[in-house]
């Protein structure tokens, strides 16, 4: 392990991260909401910590090995979560405990969207902005992780995107490529966020709200600026804008890249994953509408239809905005939403879950096994986007899904041991492990009522879900640490 090199990078990350506390600082100064001191201290502490880490080892710049890459990714999220939680603890409102602050920060940085804040409307403006901003920067990090780093590390079948995507990820060289890839992706990401903000603003949102909501829409995070979440905004226009940008945010960013470079939309429609993703959204919206209409939850059918579509899209993209509390809807919808959340959005996007592409590969594999029973001698290659998938790739997808569900069951058991009811435990695990942010049962949209150890388990599972589990689990294998 090149500890010097890793600490140097971590120091740089921290110093860069400290800069993200400056905009809230400005906002605090502008609104005079009392959070000024807290952000100044947080900024200085983070910067100093980063500098102290970086300065002694500033000359170490050895090429990093793959093993160290895994370690840095985990460190990145953990250390940033630690320092990122400072403003939540230092301000008078909300003045969270360390557990709550870490939960909230991790939830932001992994774009999960699960929250322990109870009275968002009365938070200082600076905290509100910082809160949303965490998701925005989390989304940026996730894109680089999902498009450039995980495929290279071959985690859970994501190497599929390594050679296939003629987009940014092309070579096998590590550093120059990651920088270039990151830049291309960030332009798209920032561009989308900007468009989203303008659209919200044009649709009548307040300027401050529009900025904040845009941050958590494109990153498919799901933090909201208001207690009543998206139900706060009346009219279907804002909801429709949100739906469009949630879908764009959970689309494979390589597709955006290709569409921009070749100035054509055809790649979206040729991509099997994107088409399946839209089909999933469509089906879950239809089922929700049908259930609502049959159960006659809303007197006015049109309200029901709008709320059904909005929530189905928000859950299907693993965002977690809510335009109505679906806890009061028939249980069928809750369970459907949890399943949709587990599948999540497309790979190489800001969404969570096991990703549509893996579901698609497993489906193809299942179909192939059935056909093999009829024709034992048949040679049946598995194809996706008319490209043949190697057996090792399908195996790693199988492996990933098996591990995902094992971890899932384990976490549910732990939470039930902590005293949660079954539905609450399942909901909380889906909310965190699939980076959805919304659960069912007791812990649907707020996690404040849970005890501290449960919150730590969930914080941990948010990180695991975001790092495709393997990356995190790897650190707990003895072989990883052997010289």
């Amino acid at each position, binding site marked *: 392990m090149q500890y010097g090199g890793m600490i140097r990078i971590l120091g740089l990350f921290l110093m860069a991260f400290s800069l993200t506390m400056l905009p809230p600082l400005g906002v605090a100064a502008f609104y005079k909401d009392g959070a000024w001191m807290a952000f100044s201290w947080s900024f200085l502490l983070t910067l100093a910590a980063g500098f102290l880490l970086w300065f002694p080892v500033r000359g170490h710049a050895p090429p990093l090995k793959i093993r160290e890459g895994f370690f840095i990714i985990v460190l990145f999220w953990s250390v940033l979560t630690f320092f990122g939680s400072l403003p939540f603890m230092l301000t008078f409102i909300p003045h969270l405990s360390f557990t709550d602050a870490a939960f909230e920060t991790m939830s932001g940085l992994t774009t999960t969207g699960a929250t322990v804040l109870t009275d968002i409307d009365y938070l200082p403006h600076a905290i509100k902005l910082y809160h949303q901003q965490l998701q925005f920067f989390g989304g940026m990090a996730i894109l680089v992780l999902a498009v450039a780093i995980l495929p290279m590390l071959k985690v859970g079948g994501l190497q599929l995107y390594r050679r296939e995507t003629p987009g940014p990820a092309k070579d096998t060289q590590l550093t120059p490529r990651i920088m270039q890839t990151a830049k291309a992706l960030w332009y798209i990401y920032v561009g989308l966020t900007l468009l989203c903000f303008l659209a919200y603003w044009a649709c009548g949102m307040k300027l401050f709200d529009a900025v904040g909501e845009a941050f958590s829409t494109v990153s498919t995070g799901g933090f909201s600026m208001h207690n009543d979440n998206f139900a706060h905004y009346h009219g279907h226009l804002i909801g429709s804008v949100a739906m469009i940008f949630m879908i764009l945010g959970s689309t494979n960013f390589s597709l955006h890249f290709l569409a921009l470079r070749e100035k054509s939309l055809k790649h979206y429609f040729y991509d099997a994953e994107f088409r399946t993703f839209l089909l999933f959204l469509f089906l879950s919206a239809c089922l929700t509408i049908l259930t609502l209409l049959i159960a006659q939850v809303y007197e006015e059918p049109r309200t029901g239809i709008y709320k059904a579509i909005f929530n189905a899209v928000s859950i299907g993209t693993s965002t977690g905005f809510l335009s109505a509390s679906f806890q009061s809807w028939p249980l069928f919808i809750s369970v459907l939403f949890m399943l949709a959340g587990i599948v999540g959005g497309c790979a190489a996007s800001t969404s969570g879950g096991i990703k549509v592409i893996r579901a698609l590969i497993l489906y193809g594999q299942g179909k192939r096994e059935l056909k093999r029973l009829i*024709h*034992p*001698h048949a*040679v*049946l*290659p598995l*194809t996706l986007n008319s490209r*043949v998938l190697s057996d090792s790739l399908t195996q790693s997808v199988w492996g990933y899904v098996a591990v995902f569900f094992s971890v899932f069951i384990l976490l549910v058991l732990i939470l039930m041991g902590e005293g949660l009811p079954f539905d609450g435990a399942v909901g909380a695990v889906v909310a965190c492990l699939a980076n959805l942010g919304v659960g069912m049962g007791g812990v649907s949209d707020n996690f404040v009522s849970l005890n501290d150890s449960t919150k730590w388990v969930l914080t941990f599972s948010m990180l695991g879900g975001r790092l495709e589990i393997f990356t995190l689990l790897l650190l707990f294998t003895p072989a990883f640490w052997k010289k």
Partner: protein
Amino acid sequence: MNIIILGAGQVGGTLAENLVRENNDITLVDVNNKRLKDLQTKLDIRTVTGPASHPSVLEEAGAKNADMMIAVTSSDETNLVACHIGYQLFNTPTKLARIRSRDYLEQQQVLFSTAGFAIDYCISPEHVVTDYIRRLIEYPGALQVLDFMKGEFRLVAIRPYFGGPFVGKPLSHLREHMPEDVLCIAAIYRGNRSIPLNPNTVIEIGDEVFFIAPKEHVRNAMSSLRQLDEPYKRIMIAGGGNIGAELAASLETEYQVKLIEHNTERCRVIAERLKHTTVLQGDASDRELLMSENIEYAHVFCALTNDDEVNIMSCLQAKRLGARQVMALITRTAYVDLVEGSDIDIAISPQQATIGSILTHIRQGDIVNVHSLRRGAAEAIEVIAHGNEKTSKVVGNYLSQIKLPKDASIVALIREGKMIVPYEDTTIQSEDHVIVFLADKKHLSEVERLFQVNVGYI
């Protein structure tokens, strides 16, 4: 004509044999000296040993004075280069190349122009054979289906059978009851010999009848001679070589296709290319495999491996197990005669199919299509009549006045896209497409001369 043939393989050898019989000067070039010697003892040809694409070898073969160069070596690249050298160094007027690879063929427009490799005609045997088999599958019960007028009209060989309304009746009966433009009987073979056609000739079971019909009436015409088999649906192909894979690709959208291939690696390649075909890895003559894949419900079993014996054995096996119709690809001419009329319904000779398409380009005059029939003994040609009464020996004359050689007959006229059944008092007009059936192809040159326009006509 002075013709150089490059490559003395199956196609090259058979081609040389065919062309020598028609009094052409043939020079055969190949790297295999022994093969050339063998052919030279059989045929009256000149041979040159050496790599066919080398300028010195081509010069020795007389490329300067050749009228035509036919490149049919086993390598596409050699064929391409030889044609290009023929064009650049020796100015050979007509160059024909056999190209197998799909990659080259997809770019033919650019690659084969004079700016590219300068190939006048390109033949891809796999393509020709695939088309040939495809047409047989399209018309259940047909022994041979050949195209005229770019596929608008077809020559079909068929064995009359019970259930055909005109079987056992004289030809005059057929003429009276079938509309004129549906079919024209071209020839009837009985016991391996062509029998003269007159209104009293009776169509019998066991004959081999050749008729010409417009594309849309082929099925209709066939039903007059035998009870029509229901259209094929389930096809099983043995052998995933170029022909097998290409056939499966062209059939898989309309039929239910299964393909058996022995080589695991090749299986994988084919399976990745074919979307709807079930590719099976195994031995084509493996009884268990055939049975587990429901051979008894297969309508057609095509054995298309590159091994004649395997093809024959697997076809016999398939037929025994209940396949409705079996076809075997057979390269050795001797085997074709052996298996015809046995359990194997159709023996496909790739050389015959390929040579037909090469012959079209070699024939002089206005011959636009040549098809080799009955293993090369007979030929059906499509020729365009040109000129007027003064310059042509055929235009403006009654059919009875045209002095055709023995064994040759005009079987149909195609005028402005319509088929005309010829009678003694029919006259041929300029621009008519005339289809001539030659029971013996040695009279071919006479027919060629007959249709040539006199020098005075420009």
